[in-house]
């Protein structure tokens, strides 16, 4: 695939919504250990709302689609994940503008903008043990591989997200509710980094499955 178009975007959103639903209990279980036991429940509520809106979206306008997704997440997810994932998609929307399809470069620019939005909203840095620890390596890896095309870049991004997710498991959290636990958070896989990894795996598979 040389371009990321509306059809790919819809496939990605459906895949991501399905996987969040399938892994809802796993995400909630991870959150029970170091948070407040709602990450899977909240993400599933938000992406079920997104899925319900997909048929009504104009698939020729990437920016409008991303904006609708972002607004839906902000209005339905709650917690920290709502503003963070919502902001991610709103920044994608701004970066996409009214384009119908993004090339490898364009998708990379959008993902970078999404990452910057998440960092601004949540004020988390690398090693704070949050979704940022999966997001940063994923976007870095995407950009490094963008010259090889979208599929190769997303493959690299998904792999890097998973590596980032696992890398921070031994760490003590410095942001979010897990930070209240001090040393007790060490050794637990981070729920936010896990859902972000699922996002990049869904993006990779939606594009590969075209």
């Amino acid at each position, binding site marked *: 695939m040389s371009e990321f178009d509306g059809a790919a975007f819809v496939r990605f959103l459906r895949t991501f919504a399905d996987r969040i639903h399938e892994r809802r209990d796993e995400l909630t279980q991870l959150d029970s250990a170091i948070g407040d036991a709602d990450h899977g429940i909240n993400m599933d509520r938000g992406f079920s709302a997104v899925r319900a809106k997909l048929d009504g979206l104009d698939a020729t306008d990437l920016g409008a689609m991303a904006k609708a997704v972002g607004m839906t997440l*902000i209005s339905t997810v709650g917690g920290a994940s709502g503003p963070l994932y919502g902001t991610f998609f709103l920044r994608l929307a701004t970066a996409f503008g009214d384009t119908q399809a993004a090339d490898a470069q364009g998708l990379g620019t959008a993902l970078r903008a999404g990452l910057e939005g998440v960092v601004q909203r949540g004020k988390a840095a690398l090693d704070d043990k949050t979704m940022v620890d999966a997001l940063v390596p994923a976007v870095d890896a995407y950009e490094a591989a963008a010259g090889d095309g979208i599929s190769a870049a997303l493959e690299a991004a998904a792999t890097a997200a998973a590596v980032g997710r696992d890398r921070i498991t031994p760490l003590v959290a410095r*942001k979010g509710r897990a930070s209240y636990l001090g040393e007790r958070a060490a050794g637990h896989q981070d729920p936010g980094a896990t859902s972000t990894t699922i996002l990049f795996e869904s993006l990779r598979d939606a594009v590969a499955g075209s």
Partner: protein
Amino acid sequence: MKKLINAPDAVVDEALAGMVAAHGDLLRVIEPNVVVRADAPRQGKVGIISGGGSGHEPMHGGFVGMGMLDAACPGAVFTSPVPDQMLAATKAVDGGAGVLHIVKNYTGDIMNFELAAELAQAEGIKVASVVIADDVAVQDSLYTAGRRGVGGTVLAEKVVGAAAEEGQDLAAVTALCQRVQDNVRSMGMALTSCTVPAAGKPTFEIGDDEMEVGVGIHGEPGRERRKLAGADEITEALLTPILDDLPFSSGDRVLAFVNGMGGTPLIELYVVYNKVAQLCAARGLTIERNLIGSYITSLEMAGCSITILKLDDEMTRLWDAPVNTPALRWGA
């Protein structure tokens, strides 16, 4: 899971409908799930709103009414409400004098209230915010999300609500709310976990001879797990870090608040209060006012929290002022 519910997804909506059925003289519920004081907006009065996840009842919806909150935004259980709710609440209670958001310090609450405040300000409503962060169990440092907002929130809502009721302006009630925050400290413990309805099983496992010390109000594990002790020893373990932190010193007049987490009977809270009174007296503190009961809970968790507020004359006067809400009522 054994709960008095019909379906996990319906708990919040059905509880809100029940509140309206019971307290229609005090409050109403507007879309999207905002509890609003029956006579809001009141012209010229600063609107006071708060919000947070559900599961902490009576906080915050039970504090909507004369002399306390103008609106409360309940999220899903233990989940921050969404900005649409705080925006709708802000618009519903603005009587032209501006609106104060009382926000408990949790990552999600902060972000959702911030988004709502930006949207309300874009619509021309003056919004101020104060963050309550009173839990001494969390180290306040660059390396955490900062102290949680817990029991001090209840006291802030009462005192600030009274100030708004008597006509103080937005700058004054904001400064007062910050003064309450600066003078209040809390700490909590759990004997049992709680079960989030949608999760269906207890958030953590705990042995019959264990307790979690330094818990928040979301069934999240505490700072440390210890061997169960008697009420006096537990009370001392909670109160000492509170008194050392501010620090409270001999001669201070305080409000002592012993709060149940949802599954602890009042008789046990009085056992705790007995020790709180002894320890405060030993430190030379005068307990000028007190509050004992389950006001900021964590579903059916057994356990308690202790909150101590250093009073000044104005705070004491505002604490005594009339209040008429589902959960707190005196002088009205």
